[in-house]
């Protein structure tokens, strides 16, 4: 890593408070030439019978889907080589494969491409501030998953649009972190594995998740900062589940099928509109809460904005 790059990163938290927005607003952006490239990495399952994927994409268009392909995974990226640099790491521990893929944008990161530190931490935690920035509107990334191989999927999306068609996938865990994005997540078909935790952290986004009942999650964690959020819990539920939902500022719409018993504990300043639910003590209960075979317990903290619950 070059000295000034280290400095820039070290000083960024302080400088950005005072100067960051001003510099960004005042400095003209250089018009660099473009060099578009197609990158692809794919692999057969071979001796791998479980997969752990960690993917971070600075922006553009992201499509994730599950298919009947014989490939273990298939990542296709179209990128501007003058702005981005894709990097990937593949490791195999026992019969579990680990794929880590990042497409980063900044010139500092490009110059640090040989820095092994990025690949050095096998337990890297995804956080919003770690997301690469500077969306590349014309770039896109397609990720195809093998529907037969149990997969832990962690996705970080900086900016842009993302469509996650995860119906029929074999997800054992899903962690999704988005920056300023327009994100749609759908489970058109039932997930092939039970998912212990479905975690979503959303920055300033328009976020929609459809047919979450097919995801087969036992626990949902949704943290939204700013934006309009739709959580559709329809689908073929197999067992009861819990959801921990925190919203900062914005509108949250939750759709819960009629046959699901739902109980909501709501705190925060945001208004709650739940015409089909009844307020009992600290909870909002659906009429079938006591009798429903499948129940959904929601702990909701919403700061500012509105929350709408549709049951039926």
């Amino acid at each position, binding site marked *: 890593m070059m*000295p*000034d790059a280290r400095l820039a990163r070290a000083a960024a938290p302080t400088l950005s*408070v005072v100067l960051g927005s001003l510099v960004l*607003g005042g400095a003209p952006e250089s018009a660099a030439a473009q060099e578009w490239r197609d*990158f*692809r990495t*794919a*692999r057969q399952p071979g001796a791998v019978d479980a997969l752990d994927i960690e993917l971070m994409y600075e922006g553009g268009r992201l499509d994730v889907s599950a298919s009947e392909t014989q490939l273990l995974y298939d990542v296709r990226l179209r990128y501007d080589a003058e702005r981005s640099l894709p990097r*990937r790491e593949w490791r195999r521990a026992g019969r579990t494969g680990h794929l880590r893929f990042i497409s980063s944008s900044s010139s500092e990161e490009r*110059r640090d491409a040989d820095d092994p530190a990025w690949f050095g931490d096998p337990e890297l935690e995804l956080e919003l501030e770690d997301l690469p920035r500077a969306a590349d509107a014309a770039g896109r990334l397609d990720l195809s998953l093998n529907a037969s191989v149990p997969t832990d999927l962690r996705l970080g999306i900086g900016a842009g649009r993302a469509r996650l068609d995860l119906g029929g996938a074999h997800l054992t865990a899903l962690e999704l972190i988005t920056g300023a994005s327009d994100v749609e997540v759908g489970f058109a078909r039932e997930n092939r594995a039970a998912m212990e935790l479905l975690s979503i952290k959303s920055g300033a986004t328009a976020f929609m998740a459809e047919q979450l009942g097919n995801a087969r999650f036992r626990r949902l964690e949704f943290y939204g900062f700013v934006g309009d959020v739709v959580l559709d819990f329809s689908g073929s539920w197999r067992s009861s589940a819990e959801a921990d939902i925190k919203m900062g500022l914005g509108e949250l719409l939750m759709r819960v099928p009629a046959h699901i018993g739902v109980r909501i504990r709501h705190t925060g300043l945001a208004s709650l509109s739940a015409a089909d639910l009844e307020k009992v003590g600290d909870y909002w209960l659906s009429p079938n809460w006591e009798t429903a075979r499948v129940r959904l317990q929601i702990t909701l903290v919403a700061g500012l904005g509105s929350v709408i619950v549709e049951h039926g």
Partner: protein
Amino acid sequence: MTRTLPFLACLAVVLPASAQEAGIADAAITLSAAGRAELWFELESGTEHRLRFEGETVEVDGIGIGSYAERGDLESAWRAFLREHAGEDASAVRGGLVEFRRFLEEWSSAEEVADGEAARALAGRIDAILGLAVPAGAAPALPAGEAAPEAPGQPGPMQIVPGGLGFDVTGELDRLREALGRLGDSGEFSEGGLAMIVHGDYEVLAEATIPGDVAILDGTLRLAGGVEGDILMLDGVLVLDGDARVRGDVLQVGGEVDFGEDASSVEGEILSDIRLAPSAPSAPAAPDAPSVRQVESSEAPMQMRPPQPPGFWSRLARNFGRAVEGVIAAGSTFMVLAVLGLLLVYFGRRRLETVSDTVRLEFARSFAMGLAGEVLFVPVLLVLIALVVTWLVVPFFLLAVWLAGVFGYLAAAHASGEIFARRRFRTEWLERLRRSNSYYYVVSGLALLMLPFAAGAVLWVFGGAADFVRGLILFVAGVGTWVVVTAGFGGVLLTRAGGRSVVVDWSADSAPGEGASPRAETDPPSAPVDDA
């Protein structure tokens, strides 16, 4: 010779029944008494070939395909064939070569093993080169009892050239090596480690196996057989038939790959990085976009490497551009802050001067207070968030901190400008710069604070040679900025945004302990001399 023997399996090339026979346009024969016995010819398609007996090795296109016994029957027959057709026209040479091919077929089974293998291999190569139809059951290199493969019906030349060619491909291999460098360290390969180099149109039939890596430089390789190693692709076309199998990886930096319905024939990794035509930037990635590259499923991580380093002039232009960009950024920041500072002087001069005096005269105290404020920032924010009901306050809290930081920075710049203005300079032109008013203090102070950033940016002109100095300057500038911001922030906190003075008037007559207390918060700030 031992290196070539494994490739005999590769030479089990059976021509399809529908293959077109190739005519010979030109031919030349070289015979020496105890040395080389060579036939060179050019097909009507323009492809040149060379069949040579020399040093107990049978070579085709520069590649050894088998060994022969010196002065044995195989060499004698070859020399007899060459002598018979020396000086004849090309069509006669072709007819003779076809006859010699039949001779090899009938003869080989009765001779010793080495000559027999060479004869079978040579017959196969002649079939492949001339596009001769092979009689049923006459596939020379097939193991006994194995059925002949189905004819794929591919027209044109079909050959496998293991290990090298009769012409120089060093340049192409160098380009391949450089291009593979984009994909990672494991893209390195040695020319000697390649089992096959493709530079033309070739086919590996189903029963054939390439015992190592394959480099495709140009042309088309249709693979129905196997590759034990990796396929490295610079350009051209690779077609994987249904029964093809690649034990290693497919690494592609150019050209096209047809994987068929899926890429299940590749046991290793498919990795590619291909530059697109400049006119096709924003189109979505095609589903069948080609790609390739090899990497073992080893534990070693692989990283992409940036493109090859640019030339001197492009580096110079890039460095100059970075320098200009940095100077513009620093200048723009200065301009924006200067405007803010001037507005602040105009509308809030008293408060600005109060904070500035505090920073200037009570610097340590201001810095300590600012540091404490910075340390407490995160806990306070967390408390506000954790209490939920206070979320409404969070934006105002963040705004207040941001404003305090900017205000403090401008006040510290004012203090710096005042210190600069009060200093005596030996040079006359610096003395002329001295002014005594708040507008001047703010602008000059900001210039002083931004100057190191601009200087660091200018050093980009020298590129990597000045990395250390540039880093050092920027480090000092960054630390200095943090110190200034912290002190300014502390000054704002101490004076309640300039609403009260906490500065001791040391110019008063009374000494400490005799009147003026260091904590005399009602002491007026030292007002600057204003000549505005």
